[in-house]
């Protein structure tokens, strides 16, 4: 299969492939010394987020990742990668910690979306996401977000405000799942493949829209075929980019980060 020519829906299928590596696999491979740390200090420890500290070529960094789980048992424990508010609060706590100790932050996005449930609402899902969006814009260390497989809506964006946003080639990033989109706009969730084309959710589309800054190439059959090369490329880019971003004076880094999001959106002046 030539991944240059496949449809948007094919990429959705690849992004959700049962054998596709999860954040845990990526972390184990590129950060062998990763030390997981837990909890939001407010309510609990959301298992849909794996957070910790690791070194990248000797440089300590904070890693904040959404994890879907690999086995059925793991998936249930991780709530299929759908975080509750405490997950977002754990993430922002560890970002602040990274800022204090001047560690760059790497976010790994992989979620169908923030969990829509009773407890999530009771504990302020909307508030947790909003807080992250507003806090991340002025964090005084370099930050990079990468969408590994699925970037679902506000639940992904809540760790997607960074100096650079990257995507793996067959990852998707969208306002809603194609099924949800089809069910709202076509009143028919079975039209998801049609929706996927219209939504422009592939890495290629989003790169053209300047929503993302880099695409990490995957092997032809998808990431699960042979993830090592893509993982190594990602690690190398991460090293190089953090090195570059660290050279930038903080006020310039923050100004650039602000401008990046400020320019997003398409409208006309009349």
């Amino acid at each position: 299969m030539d991944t240059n020519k496949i449809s948007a829906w094919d990429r959705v299928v690849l992004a959700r492939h049962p054998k596709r590596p999860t954040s845990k696999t990526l972390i184990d491979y590129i950060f062998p010394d990763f030390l997981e740390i837990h909890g939001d200090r407010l309510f609990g420890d959301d298992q849909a987020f794996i957070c910790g500290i690791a070194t990248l070529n000797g440089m300590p960094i904070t890693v904040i990742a959404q994890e879907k789980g690999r086995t059925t048992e793991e998936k249930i424990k991780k709530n299929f990668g759908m975080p509750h508010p405490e997950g977002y609060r754990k993430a922002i706590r560890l970002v602040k910690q990274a800022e204090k100790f001047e560690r760059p932050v790497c976010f790994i996005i992989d979620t169908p979306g923030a969990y829509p449930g009773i407890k999530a609402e009771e504990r302020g899902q909307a508030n947790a996401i909003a807080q992250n969006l507003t806090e991340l814009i002025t964090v005084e260390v370099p930050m990079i977000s990468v969408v590994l497989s699925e970037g679902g809506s506000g639940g992904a964006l809540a760790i997607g405000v960074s100096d650079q946003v990257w995507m793996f080639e067959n990852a998707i990033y969208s306002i809603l799942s194609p099924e949800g989109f089809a069910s709202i706009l076509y009143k028919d969730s079975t039209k998801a493949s049609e929706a996927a084309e219209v939504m422009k959710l592939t890495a290629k589309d989003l790169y053209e829209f300047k929503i993302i800054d880099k695409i990490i190439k995957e092997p032809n059959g998808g990431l699960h075929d042979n993830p090592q090369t893509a993982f190594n490329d990602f690690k190398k880019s991460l090293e190089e980019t953090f090195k570059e971003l660290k050279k930038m004076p903080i006020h310039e880094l923050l100004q650039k980060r602000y401008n990046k999001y400020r320019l997003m959106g398409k409208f006309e002046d009349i």
Partner: protein
Amino acid sequence: MDNFFDVRKSKLDVFNNNIRKKVVVQTKINISEGLFTKCESCNELIFHEDLLANLNVCPHCNYYFRLSARRRIQSVVDKGVLTEMFLNVNTTNPLNFPGYLDKISQYQESSQERDAFVCGKASIKGIDVAIGALDSNFMMGSMGSAVGEKVTKLIEFATLEKLPLVIFSASGGARMQEGIFSLMQMAKTSAALKYHSNAKLLYISVLTNPTTGGVAASFASLGDINIAETKSLIGFAGPRVIKQTINQELPAGFQTAEFQLEKGFVDLIVERHKMRDTIGKLLKLHKKEV
């Protein structure tokens, strides 16, 4: 025995006539004259002028009708005067979504607004403010690029002019037809608010019915003071989505203004009639000595 049936028949006739008459009367008034509005809650007919004067609240049962963005702002600012700003921002169709611009045109016609956000400069109880309101009559107050841009411009204006900011939200969330561009408006508006906040300026966010999705999960939740209007539905996911996900009924009072107060996500609940006075009081309490 015959007598029994006669009595019953005459009772039935009276009943039927009354019901029929009632229906006829209502239809006649609603269609031919348009002077009355039927309350969606208690079914009483309300003289249209009375409803307007009562800020779209039913005088019989206190039901809250929707309030357009423009009337919402007029209802709280001094003399109802708004110096409107950023009128030149117009919606486009970034994903070439079929029928989107036609839909926009229809809403523009019915609402006489360009999109779902009206904003500008005004004063409340003599204090200058940057003020804006989402319009739930315009595509459910959804936030696309144009709405996000206007919200951001308003926040940046407030930061630059050192003004307190008041935003009324009424929205189903991000606008699906603009896909990822709508999603990014959440980041853009929240980023602008961080700089407004760092400048030690006051932001009052008023969450009205309904405030959900991408608007709830961005600027609407970020007030120094979050006010919920009485009887508003406020939450991240809509009740239907949650019900589908968990496959069970939702508890009574879920996602109401009272629920948000109890869970600690809004500072106070304010009735529509007291909104102007409450905002005025808050502005006064935050006024800096010059």
